[in-house]
């Protein structure tokens, strides 16, 4: 028995460093697998690029659909009034389930079209609310104000005689919610087990230098400051201040980052930032007519009846969306701190900006609106110069190379964006939220 451990040691000593040439096809298989992996990575990046492009396109479409030139005409403004009513009656629509699933309940919503919310004072709304209550009684439903309406289905109003009590509503405007959204079941995140999957970041510190690529999109909001540049600009300043309101924009971009010594970063890239404003034109000579059009069955035929509901004098009724597209090339420096899966970074720097696209309307002089591009001297210069940027990023590693991040940022454009001859000096600050993905290349 004493000789036995020696036998093991002897065999171990002989075999521990033994090398045997493997068959050639092993490398062929390894190489093929690595090639598949590269193709997969390429497909992943294609998908990310497509996602960004779709985001940009959707942003342009969404924010650009009311862009300059598409002026709202009188009567297009409307207000939707929802009177939430929920039915506890055991019908086929009612879904009962676990405690974390909301019951499906009927809701009735009344939608009224009008010129503006102000056209429905409380005394006008009172009959509507009364009608809704009657409607609730007729259809054996009870009021449940805790739910919102998301899914609507038009219902023949003939089923609800209480509709006769809705004197100012269009008949097709009664909508019935067939179902309510179920509250999603609680999502359980798989915990990171102690001792396993702990190296979810690359060993950035040991590697010396790491390259990363970011792709992102997100909302942008602009903060505008107008000042009088020339004495003649006082009236224009008042007109512009009263007629222009900030609106939500969007931005998207790509950025490369080099991380040194695991912590210090330098980054640059290209992003597109579109900020938006609304130009609301008031005209003292305007008359806004509020009408209602409905269809009635009369003398064995359908007839269209137009009722005049009200008049409005000299108030705002024209609204134009102004859009400004800014190209941004930043050069930033920052620092990064990481935990297991998550971390954060701060970075700041300078960026060169080019305002390469603008559309919309504004007052060229008090009382005279014009297309922005036609106004001389120009209210917006093409080369808006440099801006200072600062951002705070929080990130979460999906795997060793991939991060998701959320990054609030602030940009201050140093010089006024207006032409020096323009009578108003206008300065812009932009702020927003970048939501994106980072891929590390090591």
């Amino acid at each position, binding site marked *: *028995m004493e*000789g*036995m451990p*020696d*036998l*093991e*040691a*002897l*065999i*171990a000593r*002989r*075999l*521990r*460093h*033994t*090398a*045997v*040439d*493997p*068959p050639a*096809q*092993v*490398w062929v*298989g*390894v*190489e093929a*697998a*690595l090639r598949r*992996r*590269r193709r997969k990575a390429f497909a992943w990046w294609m998908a990310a690029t497509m996602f960004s492009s779709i985001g940009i396109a959707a942003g342009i479409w969404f924010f650009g659909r009311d862009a300059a030139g598409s002026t709202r005409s009188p009567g297009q403004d409307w207000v939707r009034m929802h009177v939430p009513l929920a039915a506890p009656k055991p019908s086929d629509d009612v879904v009962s389930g676990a405690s974390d699933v909301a019951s499906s309940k009927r809701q009735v919503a009344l939608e009224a079209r009008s010129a503006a919310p102000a056209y429905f004072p409380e005394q006008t709304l009172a009959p509507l609310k009364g009608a809704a209550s009657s409607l609730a009684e007729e259809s054996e439903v009870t009021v449940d104000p805790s739910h919102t309406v998301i899914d609507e289905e038009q219902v023949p109003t003939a089923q609800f005689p209480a509709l006769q009590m809705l004197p100012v509503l269009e008949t097709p405007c009664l909508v019935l919610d067939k179902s309510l959204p179920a509250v999603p079941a609680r999502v359980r995140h798989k915990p990171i087990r102690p001792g396993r999957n702990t*190296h979810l970041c*690359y*060993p950035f510190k*040991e*590697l010396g230098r790491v390259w990363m690529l970011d792709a992102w999109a997100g909302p942008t909001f602009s903060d505008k400051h107008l000042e009088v540049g020339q004495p003649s600009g006082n009236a224009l300043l008042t007109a512009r201040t009263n007629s222009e309101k900030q609106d939500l924009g969007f931005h998207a971009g790509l950025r490369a980052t080099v991380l040194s010594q695991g912590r210090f970063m330098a980054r640059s890239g290209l992003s597109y930032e579109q900020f938006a404003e609304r130009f609301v034109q008031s005209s003292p000579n305007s008359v806004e007519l509020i009408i209602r059009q409905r269809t009635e069955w009369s003398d064995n035929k359908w007839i269209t009846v137009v009722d005049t509901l009200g008049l409005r004098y000299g108030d705002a009724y024209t609204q134009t969306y102004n859009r400004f597209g800014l190209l941004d090339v930043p050069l930033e420096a920052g620092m990064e701190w990481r935990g297991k899966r998550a971390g954060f970074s701060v970075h700041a720097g300078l960026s060169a900006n080019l305002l390469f696209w603008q559309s919309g309307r504004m007052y060229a002089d008090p009382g005279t609106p014009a297309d922005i591009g036609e106004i001389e001297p120009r209210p917006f210069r093409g080369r808006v110069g440099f801006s200072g940027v600062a951002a705070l990023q929080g990130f979460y590693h999906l795997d*060793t*190379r991939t991060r998701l991040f959320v990054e609030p940022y602030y940009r201050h454009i140093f010089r006024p964006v207006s032409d020096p001859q323009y009578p108003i000096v206008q300065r812009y600050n932009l702020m927003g939220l970048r939501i994106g993905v980072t891929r590390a*290349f*090591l």
Partner: protein
Amino acid sequence: MTERELIEGCLRGSALHQRALYDRFSGKMYAVCIRYAKTPSDAADLLQEGFIKVFGKIGQYHYQGSFEGWIRRVMVNTCLRAYQRQRFEMEQSGLESLPDPSVPPDAVSNLSEVDLLGLIAQLPEGYRLVFNLVAIEGYTHAEVAEILGIQEGTSRSQLTKARRWLAEQLLLLEKNDHPGSDRGF
């Protein structure tokens, strides 16, 4: 090319560095796989799977400890996982009741490394896994028990059986090499 250059090249996805790393370590790792696999073809499959894992997880190597040791651990884990999938069963051959034969000191040194690998490859599967892990890789019985999901006593018993089986085979080989000699067993 230094080891660090090799690693950093592989992290960048350089095909040249990946090939160089494969060339440097594939021989030793193939020998590891042969010890765990049933057949040479299984060993080649395990080597391939192991290197794919090495290239995929190379970012998890933190330059702490030997790189070769890290690769070897990936290979051993790959081999173990393959056999855990097959739910190997510990062989019960009754060898534990036999007395331990004594082996002449040159019985091992007379064999080439390939012959030794061949001998180990003939070990019943359960013995082979425990023998490889304990005798060659240096795992403790407690670690082997945890890795293979068996009792610590089972691991000890499997090693004893493997040892006896090997000793018997070595004696047999010795006897065949020297038919005229009488070593008293």
